[in-house]
């Protein structure tokens, strides 16, 4: 196989793995549930993207025919990831999980839980 293809794939793999690792580090380091939600759902989109492109390039070159499964994985990932994140955030709000001290707009959590507009007194 071409050296430059290997180089390209390796760079993508290392970058992708790096982003996924950072996502996991964020899971440990960040202070509360809501901020932790950002790390794995986000830093991993780019990480997964890099890994999938690497897979596409590598398989296409070794098999000699284009490999496009990965596009479907990307599509399903992009459809499901935000829904999961939304459901997790919503569940956290309804379980009344606490925010870290300095979070702005903590008083909005009550309104969000009741699903009313922020100006409502109820």
């Amino acid at each position, binding site marked *: 196989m071409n050296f430059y293809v290997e180089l390209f794939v390796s760079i993508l793999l290392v970058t992708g793995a790096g982003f996924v690792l950072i996502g996991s580090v964020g899971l440990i380091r960040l202070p509360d549930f*809501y901020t932790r*939600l950002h790390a794995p759902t*986000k830093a991993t989109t780019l990480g997964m993207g890099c890994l999938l492109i690497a897979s596409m390039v590598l398989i296409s070159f070794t098999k000699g025919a284009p490999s496009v499964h990965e596009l479907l994985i990307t599509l399903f990932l992009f459809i499901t990831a935000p829904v999961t994140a939304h459901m997790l955030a*919503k569940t956290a709000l309804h379980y009344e999980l606490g925010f870290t001290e300095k979070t702005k707009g*903590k008083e909005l959590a009550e309104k969000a839980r009741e699903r009313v507009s922020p100006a409502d007194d109820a």
Partner: protein
Amino acid sequence: MKSLASRLLPMPMHSVLLLVSWLILNNSVSPGHIVLGAFLAFTIPLLVSGLHTPQPGIRRYGLAVRYALMVMYDIVVANIEVALKIVGPLKNLQPALIAVPMDITNDLLLTVLASTISLTPGTVSAELSEDRKWLYVHVLNLEDEEALIRQIKQRYEKKLREMFEC
């Protein structure tokens, strides 16, 4: 009375999508897979068309493609930003919960908008008010609330409305 074509192919776009994803899934355009894919693309819509709720269709495909590319670009840029924030000092982080006023009330558009917000790193849509006028968004690092709300409305919501023309 519905025309024969619309009874046989109740959801033409879905049929095309099913055929294309079947071929991508099998990574092949061999005649056998095309026949099998066409069979699935024909029967599945017939079986599920009763569950289908009408949604506004995309009116301007050029804008839709541009929107998708823009969101992808935003995801890449924002991913790098979030990654840097995670490894950097955490005491500079300013998490926040904000309420974003919504102008759109349609199910599909709201879903696409909320998903876009969740996909672009640093923001997760958490809850929608019952009257669909406010979207509660959790932000990892809030710098300027006004600017963020303006960005969501200008960059995403406005384009979505143009795309679907409603």
